[in-house]
Each structure stands twice: as structure tokens, then as C-alpha cells.
């Protein structure tokens, strides 16, 4: 009796589930959100703004060099340009009009957060930006992303590897590897 159940479970686990997990591309360890690309309330395109228009990342993400947050721009930052740039296509016009309307009404846009670290990790953007770490090092080739996607896996191993490399490969950035650098 019991050995039959055991065989069924064994086949389900090792015969079907594991091969399926290994062949599917979108399977990760728990907590690893690499490739996360949520749908946003507005079709904002990084490839247009950061790519074609070559806006500096920090024009919008202005807190990146002084705060732990890079900060998501306020509508007032959008309106700096979109007061004049009202869009060339119907699609753009319609969406830019939505921004203007929200700004007039004083209603913030509820963007979907792409990069979520657990609460027990205290990552600080300014620590990295002021040391000259490029945004792309972690965020990937944002100027080619239409919809923003999590590029790196943002696991602790990934963080620590880079920190260790700074110290051992002679890159000259003293990157601490103490636990309490991030965990406090």
C-alpha cells in the first residue's frame, strides 16, 4: 500500500516536476525575481527616454546620489518636458494627456515597483553612485528596455561577489563585506 504511494510521489517529483522546472526558463529559487517585468499603469518607455533621447538617469531618478532610494520621479518632473512635448502619435498624445490630467488633479501615478529587496536588506543607492558604479552594472541595459525589467538576480551572492571583486581584483573601491553593511 504505502510503497505504491511512495512510488507515485517519487515519479511525480523526480520524473515530472524536476525535469519540468529545469526546462522551463522562468523558474528561479524562492526570492529570486530576476526578469520580473510588471505591467505599468502607463506605457512609459525607458528605451525612448534613456535610449533615443539619452536623458541622464539621474534627471528623473534624482535622489540616487544622496539617498538610499534612487526615487521614482514626481509628475512635476515629467511635466518639466511634457508641458511642451505633447506627443507625436495618437498613442503618445493620449498617454501624455493622462499624465497632465493626473498632475492637474494632484493624483500620483501608482507605478509598479520592479526592484524589491527584502526588508532586512538596506541597500543604498548613493553609496554606489558616489563611488562611480554605473547604473547599468546592476540595472542592465535600461536604454534598450521598453518596459522596465529586473536585470540581475539581486541575491546576496550576487552582491557579495561584486563586493569581493572590488577588493581582490584591485579595482580600488573598498567594498565592505561585513554582514552589518546591509543587514541592520
Amino acid at each position, binding site marked *: 500500500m504505502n510503497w505504491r504511494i511512495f512510488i507515485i510521489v517519487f515519479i511525480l517529483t523526480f520524473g515530472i516536476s524536476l525535469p519540468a522546472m529545469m526546462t522551463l526558463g522562468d*523558474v528561479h529559487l524562492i*526570492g529570486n*525575481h530576476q526578469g520580473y517585468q510588471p505591467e505599468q499603469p502607463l506605457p512609459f518607455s525607458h528605451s525612448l527616454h534613456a535610449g533615443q533621447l539619452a536623458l541622464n538617469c539621474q534627471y528623473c531618478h534624482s535622489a540616487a546620489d544622496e539617498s538610499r532610494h534612487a526615487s521614482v520621479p*514626481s509628475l512635476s518632473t515629467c511635466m518639466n518636458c511634457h508641458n511642451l512635448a505633447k506627443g507625436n502619435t495618437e498613442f503618445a498624445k493620449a498617454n501624455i494627456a493622462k499624465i497632465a490630467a493626473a498632475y492637474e488633479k494632484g493624483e500620483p501615478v501608482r*507605478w509598479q515597483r520592479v526592484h524589491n529587496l527584502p526588508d532586512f536588506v538596506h541597500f543604498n543607492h548613493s553609496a554606489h553612485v558616489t563611488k562611480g558604479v554605473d547604473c547599468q552594472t546592476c540595472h542592465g541595459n535600461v536604454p534598450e528596455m521598453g518596459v522596465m525589467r529586473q536585470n540581475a538576480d539581486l541575491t546576496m551572492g550576487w552582491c557579495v561577489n561584486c563586493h569581493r571583486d572590488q577588493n581582490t581584483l584591485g579595482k580600488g573601491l573598498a567594498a565592505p563585506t*561585513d554582514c552589518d553593511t546591509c543587514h*541592520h
Partner: protein
Amino acid sequence: MNNADNIPVQPEPTDDMPPEVAAERERALINRRRFLQISGLAALTAVAAGCTGKPMAVAPAVARSPETTPGVAYWYASTCQACSAACGMLMKVRDGRPIKVEGNPQHPMSRGGLCVKGQASVLGLYDPDRLKAPQLNGAPLTWADLDKAVAKAVRAAPDKVRILSCTQNGITARNIVNEFLQLAPGARHVSYDAVSQSAIAQAHRLSHGNAAVPRYRLDKAAVVASFGADFLGTWISPVEFARQWADARRDPAHGFLKHVQIEAAMSLSGANADQRIRLPESAQGAALVLLAKNLAARAGINDPFAEPPAGGFDPADIAKLADELWAARGKALVLCGANDLNRQLVTNFINHVLGGYGATLDFGAASQQKLGDDRELATLVDDMEAGKVSTLILWGVNPAYDMPDAARFVAGLKKVAFSVAISDRLDETASLCSAVAPDHQALESWADFQPQLGLHSLSQPGIRPLYRTRGALESLLAWCGSPRAGKHARDVIREVWEKQVLNGRKWNDVLEQGVLDLRAEGVPSKFDAAGVRDAGAKAAARAEATGFEVITCESVQQGDGRHANNAWLQEVPDPLSKISWDNYAALSPAALAKLGAKNGDLIALQAEVAGRKVALELAAVGQPGMADNAVAIALGYGRTHAGRMAAANSPGAVIGVNAFALIGAGGVVTATLKLTGGKTPLAQTQTHDSQEGRPHAMETTLAALHHGGHGEHAAHEGSLWPGQKYNGRRWGMVIDLNACIGCAGCVVGCQAENNIPVVGKQEVGARREMHWMRIDRYYSDDKPADQGAVADNPTVNFQPMMCQHCENAPCETVCPVLATTHSSEGLNQQTYNRCVGTRYCANNCPYKVRRFNWFDYKHDDPTLNLVLNPDVTIRSRGIMEKCSMCVQRIQEGKLAAAREGRKLSDREIRPACEQSCPTQAIVFGDLNDKGSEVSKLAASGRNYVVLGELQVKPVVSYLSKVRDRHEVQG
């Protein structure tokens, strides 16, 4: 000792189980069941779906503020309003909400320190039991409607309007009250303080023609003798006094302020004094008169006093004190804490003979911190009873709770046609009033203060009002029909300041500093000895004592009771008894034994106070240092209408008993005590009082220090451990026990900074308090032969104790999952997400400073979550935690220096405990930098480490306490 193993983690439900524990138990059971139900399925779906987690929205501000950046904290200067001392305060505002308050280092009075109540005041902002809208006859209404109702009542009979307020010393507050009184002719303003010092001003009116409380200057004193004034703990301006006291004793090589305390109940000041004379309250007047006679004899002036009755004290002690004071004349100061005109008059005579006026007592910058006038209050109550008051405006006071004869006030209030309370909650008084006008909390309000003449201090908001409240100043303007009605309080204050004090200075500059110091030293006024003789006779007279003398005192953590709903202040233990969440009747251990009582036994107290019969029932506690015929009870407890915390979270229950009824009219109150046979559990965080002869909290004498001795510090050499190498910095801390007064400001400062949960009375009783730092309090015996038994009048030592960040840390070697490890800068790191809760580390810690989360200590109202520091992880159940040396501040400081491309300067990084310390007893810094302050202190002869023989090599070290007396004790 409780045995932790006997306490079940999920106790069986009982009828008397506090609701928070029952709820937690229920939650835990449900969670466990639910977990088993869904765990298998959830794990599979999480993997299959790529585990994207819960989506999170980000809603950035619509318009970017040019002044603030998300995630960056900003500091704004303001004034602490936790008591009437009005210390300078800085608010840390992060993403639009105040999350921490600290002392303002620019403030000339408090100089960066803040007491335990001030540190906790940020929690009061988010108090869910605050009133959220104005009320009339119990129903909410709009401000406009309330204003109409109040204005109508004021206009109906302006001469029958009375304003009863707590001490209001700001120039704008006074300006507005004056306008009110002009627009309502015949109206009167009465000030009163729950814990009154009205006799000091009255005595100075008689002796100096100046009805003022002088500014006491310990910074100019060489000897201070205090008769029952707890100036380090609660008296008038404790933060200011504590700093002056500590500075005058910090470097024994350059002068040492000698401190003699004469008192009946053990106070923080008595615990820290060089010499403590245990003297019943009834003998203090006689002792003062004898001291005055002794000094008059030395001064060779005419002695107006008759010989005081003997008994209760040794005349030789008083003669010796007189010698010391006389030798330091011009630099001597005598304080008297009694709200008794006669004793205050004798004190004035003493200070006059000692040449104190103009030196250690100053009228130029007279204290404005206690302006209450008991006689005017008595007149007001008489008027209320006689129906001469038709409209009563109560402003920041709670007389139905804190007046000794509250019943009479309540009866009088019923005869008042219309009463309106400017209060932050529906407290004992507001709930009896016709209308309630909820005031802003201190961190939401514009206000000004003048704690000393010429010292102007501003309060600005750190957040927009959370609820539909309005500042008291704006309310008063609206009700008197002022042309300024409807104006923003900020503009009103600014106009008054422009006119009266700014004198060309820029408003924004002053606002940024938070304080404007225009104090001047006064010329000593002439002393009028008439009436002193009579006062001396009355002060020295002793009624035949029957029963116990009752001493009512403010506790360091609760003060007058206005913070009863502040859970941080309920949980922080009393500095001396180490009891939290309660008040009690403190008796000397001998008296306790004589009554046949043990700690926690209920006693019935009966007294007749000024014609009133008072009966209370409360727990008896043996408090070494108490006079044998005295019973001391802390005020500020027994709040019935403060909110859910003051009711221990179970409706109907009240924490402690209200002792205000025991305050007499100057004389000594006596009571009879009887055991009831009942018992009450006490939540005490330290139950062993003796150091058992071991050198933990060490002390030495001034004389020994001058002869090169620093106390016995055994050298410990040789270790099995290879030792650590610190190539860069090595963080360390030195705590000067000579400066530490045990006030617990650091404990609450740490709690605010590090999101330390409150666990409640039952859990404190089960030894599960979560404070990362505690202050150990030891009693040392006068007689070394009797070790174990505490002396009648013991030496008290305080020792702040937190993680010692050992180099050879015993906790690190036993952690099976490497959750606690050593950092390259010498810190012992606790990584919460690695911890699995074996508790091996806590068991292996010789200092017992690790804390385990037995539950998830969630706030029961989400508003309180706003106080949390986003830089510190919230710990969940089953996790070990402990002092991190405020590593988030270390990271922030290092980062700021790196961002600005400069070196980190010494003392730039200040852990919360160091920052909060009113006496600057704690110094943190880099031990590898030989020039740093901490390195210099670590090299001091007084430096030692606790439990040095264990070779764990802590980086926290201590400087032994120095007392000016003959023999080393303990």
C-alpha cells in the same frame, strides 16, 4: 528568579489573560494550522510562477519638493514639551514624519541632552487614543461651530470667564492671554502646575521682593546641598541641572562639585550624591534651621532662629555640612524641594548667608518653568463653588486627575455653565467639560517658550496635523474675538517675535537654531530678613508623628502623569526600584519587615490630608534608602482616562493608583498602613541588588584619585584565542560612570532609534523585556561584613549595560548558523535573517544583553507604525537581537563622509545612547585612532572592563565613579 523553561510559549487561555497575549496565542495557532494546510501547495506554485512575490506600488509625490529627498532624514529645531522644563529639541523627519527626537546641542540650557520623557514624546504624536476632532456635549462638530459656542459663552459674561492653564511662559502665549483678558474684561488667567513649586516664588517675594524662581546655577557651584529636591531626576529643569552637575565633576583633577543630598525617599539625586543623609520629611525643617543657625554663627551675623527640636538627625552631620558650605561660600548652593513656604524662606536665608544670590542663584534669567500659583488656584476653586465662574477654559491641564482635592474641583466644575478643555485626549477633566478643543501634539504645533527670562525657544511642526486638531493659541484668539483670529499660529508668533525680541535678527535664522538667548545676569536684590524668624519656628516645629510620613514624588519616567498612555514610558523601569508598569508604596526594608510584608503584598493606606480622608490600596515594595517611618508613592499613575496603554490594554484596568490626593498643603502628611492580605504581581527587571563584592560598577574616592589610586583594576593577560586584527577602524565605547546618573534617557533613546518593541507588564514579569540596553543598579553595603544584606542607607551605583561587542565574543562561537559574527571594525553583528532562534548565544553571553523575540510584537494600531525607523529592520518572532552600536548610524556617517570626499571626524557618529545622554557619559569612536576622544578615555587610569577575567575583551569599557568621601564602599 523566574525559570524561563516553566513559561509555555503558547500559554493555555485563561480568564485573566491580557488580550494582547490571548490574541497573539490565537494568531499563532491559526498561523500554524494555516501553514500546514497550504505549505505544500504554496511551495510548488511559488516555484512554478517564478516567485515574483506580491506586487508593490510606488506612488511618488505629485510635485517634487525642492527641500526634501525621499529616504533622507532632515532635522528641525523645536522645543520639547514633555514637561515644563522646555528643553531644546531636534526632530528627525524622514519622508514627512518625525521618527526620533533628540536634544538640540545649540540650546544653552539642555545642551543636546533630553530626558526619558522627552525621548519618548515622539511616540505620543502617533498615540491612537488622541482626540481626532472637536466635540460639544460629546458630539463631534466643526471648529466654526465650536468657536461660535465658546465665543457666545465668553461674550455672555466676560467677567465670569476664567482660563486655567499649565505654566505658559512663551511671549506669544502671554501676549494672547493678555489680549483675551482685555477683550473679556474681568476675565482672569490662573496658572497651575500639577507638581507645584509655588512656595519658591512666594518665599522670594517675601525675602527678596521678587516673586520668582531663581535660575539655579550648579555650573557656578562647588558645593550643593539639596534638601529633598531631586534636581537630577525631576525637579524644575533636570536635564540642565544634570549636565551642569556632571560637567562640574567630570575631571576630578580640575575641581569637583561636592553634592550632599538630605532626603527621606531615595531619589535619583540621592543615589548619585557624594553623601546622602537619610532624614525623615518631618525633621527636614529642623535640620534646615540648624544649618541656618550654624552658618549664621560662622558668618558672625545675628541669628534669628530659636534652637530647633532635636531628633531624626545627627547635629554633627549638619555642622560638617555647614563647614563645607561655608568654606565654599559664594560657590555654595542649598536647594529645597518642599513646596512649603516656611522651609523655602529658611533656605533663602541660608543661600543669602552663603552669598549665593547673584552667584549660584540668579534672578536675571529667573526660571519660568514653574509659574503655577497655588493660592490663585484655591481662589478659582472657591469662585467656582460660589458660582462666580460661568465659563472655564482649561488649557493643557487635567485638574480632575491631578489636583489634590480633585473631587472639590469636579463639584465646582458642575456649577460652571460652560467649560471647554484644550486637551489632546478625552482625559479625566475633558470628559467632564461641555466642549473639547483638541490641541495639536507638540510635534505638530507652532508655539513659543521662555524657560528662563530672556531665553526664547520656538516650537515648529515636524508634520502636518494628523487629525482635525487646532493649536491652543489659535483657539484662544478665535474665542476672544481677536482681530488676529483665523491667523496661522506661525504668523502670530512671528509678529510678536518681530516686535519684541528679534530686534533685526532674521526670523528664519532663529527658527533654524530653535532658540534665541537674550539672558542677562541679574543684580542680586536686597534680602529682607523679616518673617524669616517666624518661618524658622514653623518649619522646625514637629507635630507628634503617628504612622508613616507620606512622600509623593514624580517618577523620572512618568512625571505628572501626562504621558500615561506612552507605552515606552510605562515599560522603562524606574531607575531605582527597576519596576515598570506600576507605582507602589516604597518602604524601607526594615519597615517592610516590621509590617510583615513582602514585595508585592497589597497594603491599605489611610490618611487624612487637609481634612480629606484618603484611602488607597497598592503594592508595598522595599526600597533601600527610605527613611524608616516614610512611605513614598510616585505620582502620575492611576490614570482612568488616558487611553488603552494606561489601562494596560484591558478596558477598566488602570495602571497604578493616583496619589495626587496625598499632596498636603505644605506640612507633613501621615498615614496608617495595613496589610490587606492580597498580592499583586510586579514587573521588575532587576531583582538582585548586590554586586556580591565583585567589581562591576566600580567607584573610587576623590582623595584616592588625588593620590594616584583609581580603584583596584586587576590586569588580565593571556588568552587561548588568537585575537583579531583590525586594519581600519575599531569601534569602541567608554561609559563614564562618574557622569552617568541612571536616568534611563539612553534606554528610551535606543528604543526609539532601533524599533524596540514594548512587551507589556506580563512579559516584563517573565523577564522578556526587549530593551537593548539596561541600566544595572547596585546597592552597596555600608558594612562589608554584612554582604548580601542591603544597608539602610546604601551607596547606589548605576551601570548602563548593553552588548559589549567582545573581541572574543562567546556568542559568536556558539551560533550554529553564523547569524552572529565579528565585523572587520570590531562590532559583533547580529544578522536577523540568518538567525533561527536557538538562543545559544544568549545563554553563552556573560553580560546577558541579548534579547529574544518570543512573539511578534505588532502595534495594535497601525498609526503607531509611523514611528518606526526605516533604517532598522523589524524583527520577527523567533529572532535574537541586541545592541548593534547603532550600526545604521555608523553606515550613514561613513557614507556621508565618503559622499563629501572627506575623512570621518571623531565623534561625528553618535549612537542613540550617546546622543541622548543629558550628562554626556557615553563616548563612542575609533579605538585605532589614538587621537580620538574614546582612545583618550580608554587610556584613563579609571578605565576598566566588566568581567575582564573572562578574557572576552569587550570594546565597551567604563570609567569608575568618583565620590568625594572618605572611604571606598562596595
